[in-house]
């Protein structure tokens, strides 16, 4: 089988999986879900590392490093900000002292 068809198969199956796994999301979680999905596409960092690590051209190296910085911001920032949002959704049990909210937001 043509290799492109294998990739196409993976692509199409992933489309269905992507729709199926989030189809029952409540509107409460739309924002964190969007943010989490946003962080996942930060995986382009892997692509940026692969091309930058294989180049022998100075201009390409600089462009690659810029791509790595941008992708790392997307990936790391995305997961951290999602986690911060989701901390708010943790059901507060009759907890007396434990306040896990980080100080930066207590304005």
């Amino acid at each position, binding site marked *: 089988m043509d290799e492109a068809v294998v990739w196409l198969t993976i692509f199409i199956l992933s*489309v269905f999986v992507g729709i199926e796994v989030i189809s029952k999301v409540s509107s409460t979680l*739309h*924002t964190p879900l969007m943010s989490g999905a946003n962080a996942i596409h*930060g*995986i382009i960092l892997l692509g940026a590392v692969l091309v930058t690590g294989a180049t*022998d051209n100075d201009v*390409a190296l600089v462009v690659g490093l810029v791509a790595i910085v941008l992708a790392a911001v997307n990936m790391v920032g995305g997961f951290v900000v999602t*986690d911060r949002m989701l901390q708010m959704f943790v059901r507060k049990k009759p907890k007396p002292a434990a306040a896990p909210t980080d100080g930066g937001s207590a304005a």
Partner: protein
Amino acid sequence: MPTWVQLVYLACAVCFILALKGLSGPRTARAGNLVGAAAAVVAVIVPFIYLDLDHVPLILAAIAVGTAGGVVGARRVQMTQMPQMVALFNGVGGGAAALVALLELHEMTPHVDDVSWFTLAATAFTIAVGSISFAGSIITFAKLQELMTSRPVIFPGLRYVFPIAVAAAVVLGVRVVIDPTMWVGIVLALLGLLVGVLLVLPVGGADVPIVISLLNAFTGLTVAAGGYVLSNVVLLVAGTLVGASGTYLTMLMAKAMGRSVANIMFGALKGGSTLGGGEASDRPVRSAGPEDVAILLGYADRVIIVPGYGLAVAQAQHTLRELVDVLIARGTQVDYAIHPVAGRMPGHMNVLLAEAQVPYEQLIEMDEINGEFKHTDVVLVVGANDVVNPAAKTTPGAPIYGMPILNADEAQQIVFMKRSMRPGFAGIENELLFDPKTTLLFGDAKDSLGKLLNAVKAL
């Protein structure tokens, strides 16, 4: 590629599916996010182990810089500014994807004959759509951060310039496939930036969250195409998952607002502006002081709070929660009615109230609480407007017509806390403000709530 690497990548791809699955349920959301993060970190570490990469110190330094920037940005941002932060993260991801594709194009040009047309097409797609996502997200960020006007920006030739720019981008994309040279790729990227700007400029502020979600899906698809170009299954699966779920999520959000995605993106182009006049009205209303409102609230049996973005802007969530605590202590039944698009993004209001330690059980979603307004003595609307505007049900021409709203108009009394008579984000007048059952309490939300709190305590 060694087998173990392929297996690790497969595991990472599965983890991303589980991450999205987890993120769609309240109890599993946080774990889902962590699973996704762990998979992403593992996937990035793998090439350092099995490949003999060049420039490793520089690459690690760049990752460190980006990580630091991301962590600082993510931790410092105010919860109210969350939507623009997500837009910014999305934009830089799209930009990174476009740059990666340009570099790949550079690698391919010396031996073009060995490269399939499909690979070239995927490269062109990534360059163009990544640039669109980057520029569009930056404009979205500027709109939400109020670095520029949040109203639709329309200029006379826009309805011609936009299709021409899109058509030119398609032609250049085809050109990349037929005759791949670096300069065509660079022009394609620049054109993508232009299309991104033109795409978002005409969108009104209230619809911007939908655009963020759509651009998020775009970036996902570019990452998927980039994965094909690089023959990397993790990128392909992760990108496709985000592209598909992001597109679906965009449609869910648009549905929650009673709009279609096409209407939101191109409504302003067709002339039917997404915003109305935005003028302050001078029709008579009934206003009252904090003491009067305190009496209304203090002797009510059932109170429903309708919080909106104005509450968050005034940073008044904490004062509101104190007020509710006092009312509950007086024996009043108090709940918060959460409209799906309260705040600037769906679910944004829940995050803001949760930050103020409002118990999750008091936040009631629209469908559950809408039947209760009939039996409610007082509805207190704090910094919200469009989500209780009956025009959504009664005025077919209104921009928000068809959007499900909270039935605040069915309550015995309605109290609006507002800064002024200016209309809400959608820019249309709210008939409910002029209803005989309605009382207005003018002033900054935090200030008014403070006074109201003291007045209720003094009862």
